[in-house]
């Protein structure tokens, strides 16, 4: 029987994969994808908490929808930035985007 703990475990795994991706990846597109993983882990938590803690009030789903909308916007802006930087630097490696560093 799949219960609350299994949802939380899946969310924690997804969050961990996303976090490791953020820490170790150098490709800007991969970084955006890792951020998506973390946001999806949060969405799973929200939906699971809605069912098991709040008793199906729908509030969790509402927040999950908000997160999806914000994530779509974020990816749109993020990809636009990356494409522009790629045109400038001919690279999608974040280590090359160091023009603001000392």
């Amino acid at each position, binding site marked *: 029987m799949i219960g609350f703990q299994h949802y939380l475990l899946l969310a924690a795994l997804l969050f961990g994969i996303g*976090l490791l991706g*953020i*820490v*170790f990846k150098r490709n800007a597109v991969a970084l955006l994808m890792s951020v998506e993983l973390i946001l999806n882990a949060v969405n799973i938590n929200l939906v699971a908490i809605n069912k098991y803690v709040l008793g199906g009030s729908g509030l969790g789903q509402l927040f999950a929808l908000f997160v999806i909308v914000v994530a779509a916007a974020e990816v749109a802006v993020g990809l636009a930035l990356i494409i522009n930087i790629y045109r400038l630097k001919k690279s999608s490696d*974040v280590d090359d985007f*160091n023009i603001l*560093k*000392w």
Partner: protein
Amino acid sequence: MADILNYIWLIPVLPFLAFAAAGTVFIGKPATAAAVSIFAIAISFIISIITAVLVFTSAPGFIYESSLRWLDMPGLRVEMGLLIDPLSALMLLVVTTVALLVQIYSLGYMRDDPGFARYFAYQSVFAGSMLGLVLANNFGQIYVFWELVGLCSYLLIGFWYHKDSAKNAAIKAFITNRIGDFGFLLGILLLLITFGTLSFSQLPNQIGQYSNAAMLLVIGLLLFLGPMGKSAQFPLHVWLPDAMEGPTPVSALIHAATMVAAGVYLIARAFFIFSESAQVMSVIAYVGGFTALFAATIAITQNDIKRILAFSTLSQLGYMVMAMGIGAMTAGMFHLTTHAFFKALLFLGAGSVIHALHDEQDIWKMGNLSGKMPVTTVTFIIGALALAGIPPLAGFWSKDEILSGAFAGSHTILYLLGVFVAFLTAFYMFRLIFVAFFGSNHGGLHAHESPAPMTIPLIILSVFAIGAGLVNTGLTDFAFSRYITVSGLEHHEPVSAVMIISSLVAAAGIFLAWLIYQKQIISAEAIKTKFIPIYNLLQNKYYIDEIYAWAGKNLVLGSSRLFEWLDLKVVNGIVDGLAGFARWSGSKLRLLQNGQIQTYTVYIYVGLIVLLLAAICMSVNAWLI
């Protein structure tokens, strides 16, 4: 008559005004500058005479004091004031008389000097400072003017600043005096801390009630350092012979008659402090006695006319200081007074000779001047006789007063020393006279008598050199001793044995000089070769300058090197080490801040995990308990 007391402030102020005028607007008009300067000192002289007449016709305890608050803050009160008593009235007379005569004399002596106006400006500021010092009613004021006369001395020694020797002599005088003045300042500050006042009228009462003998000893010794520097007592005497690089009238006024006597005047003025401590008094007496002997022995072998007189001045200052030390304050001041007149006379006479011989100062290149320069010769001999202590000239009475004091106070060593110095004094003065004014040399062949502005002061001063001693004889009922005295000081009646011995000794000195240098019965060369080590020692002034140079080079430079090392390695090392540590730790810590967002993310989540684990451990702990 008493109204004059309202105008006493003019005595020091007028020369200062003359300085301001001569030093600024009249600097390009030498004749006007000199006239202003002489006019100012003449007015001061007249006021001083009227004041002195008032003081010395009143009862002996006459005191007039007026004072302005100059600086007033908690714990420190400094006043500027005027103090007229017999002591300061006497000094006013001496200073204004000699200063006036020297300035008149300078009209002739400095006539062709390009710095004529500047010279008179300096003379005026010196006169003003010296008179301010004499009139001071507290130690704070005396210190200010003490430094001012020291400055004037520096300026006038270095008057011909294009000469290296004059420049160096001026610096030497300034630095040597600085050592003494530093001790003097410490003494004054200690007085202020201990007694809370610097006033000459309040201190005697306070000191009378004070019982800490060690403190009085320290204060006395520190204060005595001032007179040691200013009056050129051993071992701070080295500047005075070199000070002869200045113009000769300056040597007469500052380095013979007035400024160098300021030290003796200070001892007399602060006698109530020094006399509280027997140890201080014996230090003063023996420093003075030693200086008197030390300088007199050097004077025998010198060949420069001004240097002989300079060492003679040192020796006579030693006499005065010794007199103070044995408690004969009256005798010391008496000798100061007579010495001021006859030593100024001798210096001005020497200046007259130097002027006539176009700046020749070596006595062996003079000779046979007596025919060409009668006035100078006669007045110089009068001065020398007075200095040698031949009765009835001024020096006889005052020197005798000191010797009587030593004799009556049973200071046998100092008495014998004083007699021996009297012999040496007579000897070296007449060595000078026989060599320079008579003798078989013909250096004076083209000499000519000096002009009237130079000879008239010589004549006036020689009158003083003859007569000034009479103020403390039976003729005036010992007026000097009645007026210039301190409470508890008894006056010794002159002892006729002492008088006879000192006269005989002086005569013997003159006779010996006559035998050696005039008749040449005893060969000076033979004596010199026989005692060549002693001669060299004396000729080189006991190598004191060389010892100081050696000490300066080795001790000062050596310790400087040590301090340089300490500064560079220890002090600088600590500071550099701190900076280095900061730089090193910064270079390591900055690795944390590498600008990688991802690294920061790791920090954040590692921190979060640590916090979570800690929270879990704590809740598990709480559950177990």
